[in-house]
């Protein structure tokens, strides 16, 4: 077992993990943050996307020990303390950008990172930027519109 310290959603957490423990399993099983979902085992679907030091990362293909000392933000950590949603969450709600909701946490985290990294993206840019996140329900159109709305670059 190896000791790791992560700052997760602003709170420092130290715990022991097997060196091979994936970050997503540490978040879910050790820290009880089950909002981050596992959709595949090949980095293909993006359901497990979280922010590691502000950048999106697929938590199913990163060892927890690789994140030692990092700031991690998960879907549980982005709404305001009073319960109001993050603008990206709000845009997903308003644009009906989720149905079953399983891909949603990863999709929202990827979108937050995308918009931050590339302000002013157009529709094509959003589509390519989210290529690593799969959704089986929505056909993507409402997701794209939600991201454009949150980015302030379209989608009403």
């Amino acid at each position, binding site marked *: 077992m190896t000791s790791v310290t992560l700052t997760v959603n602003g709170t420092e957490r130290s715990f022991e993990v*097997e060196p*091979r*423990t994936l970050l997503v*399993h540490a978040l*879910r*099983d050790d820290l*009880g*943050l*089950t*909002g*981050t*979902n*596992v*959709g*595949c*085992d*090949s980095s*293909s*679907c993006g*359901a497990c996307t979280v922010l590691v030091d502000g950048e999106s990362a697929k938590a199913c293909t990163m060892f927890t020990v690789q994140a030692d000392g990092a700031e991690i933000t*998960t*879907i*549980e950590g982005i*709404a305001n303390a009073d319960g109001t*949603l993050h603008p990206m*969450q709000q845009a*997903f*709600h*308003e644009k*009906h950008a*989720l*149905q*079953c*909701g*399983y*891909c*949603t*946490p990863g999709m*929202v985290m990827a979108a937050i990172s995308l918009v931050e990294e590339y302000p002013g993206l157009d529709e094509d840019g*959003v*589509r*390519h930027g*989210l*290529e*690593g*996140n*799969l*959704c*089986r*329900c*929505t*056909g*993507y*159109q*409402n*997701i*794209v519109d939600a991201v454009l709305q949150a980015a302030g670059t379209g989608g009403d």
Partner: protein
Amino acid sequence: MTITESAPAAHVGSRRLRKEDPALLTGEAKFIDDLDLPGAVWVGVVRSTEAHAKIVGIDGSAALAIDGVTEVLSGDDLAPLWGEGALPCAWPVTPDMKNPPHLPVARGTAKYVGDAVAVVLADSRYAAADGAAAVVVDYEPLDAVVEIEDAVADGAALVHPDLESNECYTWGLWGDNAAAVDAAFAEATHVVTERYVQQRLIPAPMEPRGCAAVPSPAGGELTLYSATQIPHILKVMTSVVLGIGENKLRVVAPSVGGGFGCKLNVYAEEILCCALAQQRGAPVRWTESRAEAAVSTIQGRGQVQHIELAADSEGRLQAVRVKLLADMGAYLQLVTPGVPLLGGFLYHGCYHIPNYIFECKAVFTNRVPTDAYRGAGRPEATYAIERAMDSLAVAVGVAPEEIRSRNFIKAEDFPYESPPGLVFDSGDYHAVLDKAVSLANVAGRRAQAAQRRAAGSSKRIGVGFSSYVEMCGLAPSRVLASLAYGAGGWEAATVRISPTCKVQVVTGSTPHGQGHETCWSMIVADKLGIDPDDVEVLHSDTAISPTGLDTYGSRSLSVGGTAVFMATDKVIDKARSIAAHQLEANEDDLEFSGGVFRVRGTPEAEVPLAGVAFAAFTAHDLPDGMEPNLEAHVTYDPPNFTFPNGTHIAVVEVDTDTGNVDLIDYVAVDDCGVQINPLIVEGQVHGGILQGAAQALYEDAVYNSDGQLVTANLADYLVPSAVEAPRYRLENHVSPSPTNPMGVKGVGEAGTIASAPAVMNAVVDALRDLGVSNLEMPASPQTVWKAISQAQGGAS
């Protein structure tokens, strides 16, 4: 208060945002793998790596040496847990259908890659996975039959040697019509003969399957949590298979991350976890990995279709003859054999065809079973008739929209009795087609395509049509009986009004992304004159919603929603009696609007629903003999199916140099009857379209000749991303269904049913002048490029 002020708020028909969203958007929602079950035993399943093999030995010693692995159990070890019980098939479509015993864990012989052959128990998910990988199984390979047509070839290897053939059943409709069909073909001016292949598809909801069985050893109760579409059906079936009294069994579907039909089943792992939990007195859980999902969860489609059309000189259809070969896989799951039959009623499409004959031969292969996948039989039927209609248009020399228009069932002919005897409820197929043609600017696109051709451009434009009608709202129970289905088709609902006038709706329908909570709230709120936020909708737990038949076949709204609608009416009727008593008026003189009962002509004599609800609760002064409280239950058995319809038009750009196909425009005009929430309808249509387009262009469960699945992960099995998805442009046409009081039809599968043929017809349209007249799905760059090369006489 005046009547005008209290006019009912129309929530139905509005684009109300979903009440399901906040929990899903914040990570608060609990999916199956999120359940915290201290002390649970983790199950790892050892799956056959052979398509067909004798299991000679199972060596668990390496697995048992792994820290955390506690047991390795073979099919023989586990057999006493289920005795004679086998996984259920609820649809014996013919009396002589072959249904080989399907054990949760195989004994003796593995029949497909992915077949469970042993089980590892461990104290963590990692140890379970490590243990399953470390079990050494000694196989003696047997000849496997992989492809559908090979299964019926002379000398084919046998999936189940004791059955002496790979045939599962042969099912036909209107065999006595054969002579009339033959005569129509003999007299026809145009005959179209086509063969299409429905490749196997992996459903791939974003949440894989998973389940957990939690016993209460003292009382003998068992709770099964499962990522399922069908907690109610699963409860009955688990009870029957394992002999657990239904009074001792509770099934809960937590938040479910999509199903698309593949979670409409009773799976080995559910039975296994229940049996082990009961035996061990401890929680037992299993979570499917994506790699497992590809080989252990049912697949969709899997048919070879032969369709023939006979038409007169003007292209008016005289007869349709259909012969299917349908791939069951190695065993029959819950409704495996019935899926092709659901299509069997619809191979005549939206067209008036005097003579129709359909036959399906179902075969076993050494592959994971097939079963319902979004559309279940109807996408296959629509694909065949809509592709064939384009061939007929070419033969007759008219445009695709013209051949459709000439043959459509006419608006004035509804209700229309179809050749197989279904009564189509309502529609105006011509109006829908016209709307789509206009929205897609078909004339403009064709001009663009002609310009590109004339300029010798390698970027060809193609326009493809698909007009569909489908049957939803499964189903009238008596019709299901006539099809030998093992259950009814009703749905249940309870509506309760609390002392403070909040409303509780209990539905037997089981959502997994469709937005039931929002829509049921809107329906009830409008009827009661209250706010939808004052309605809670309970579902998916047999302890809370004991009666139900769950969610599949686009049935939720037209059957389950109708039950809610009717239960609300029943509550209002009771409230009316109480209000009349309170107002000292005759019930017949009361009107109810905006949540207030009033005596007609005496506006000041009124009582709000809240006053009635509280009076019903206190029961201090109710009419003689009346039970306290406002609550009503309805079980609704629909008198007919519903028949959504529409026309979709796909526009593609095909690169003749690379074979790449881009979907550059997609227009859908759908008639799903009255829409409760257009926002949710559009979402369903968007996702459905992409799922069908994915069959046309990307997805294929490819097996090699050894029966190995070579597209077993999401890197190889091409679920489309936002990059491949087109922008959808939707319009609708509303012809209310006369079958139910809200006039609704259903929309969950429409997009998928319509889109594959629209896209394929567009690709063929783009390439027809190059000599390409047919393509198999998926129209990958390689397939398209090869087809062009072959048509041009080049190398393949």
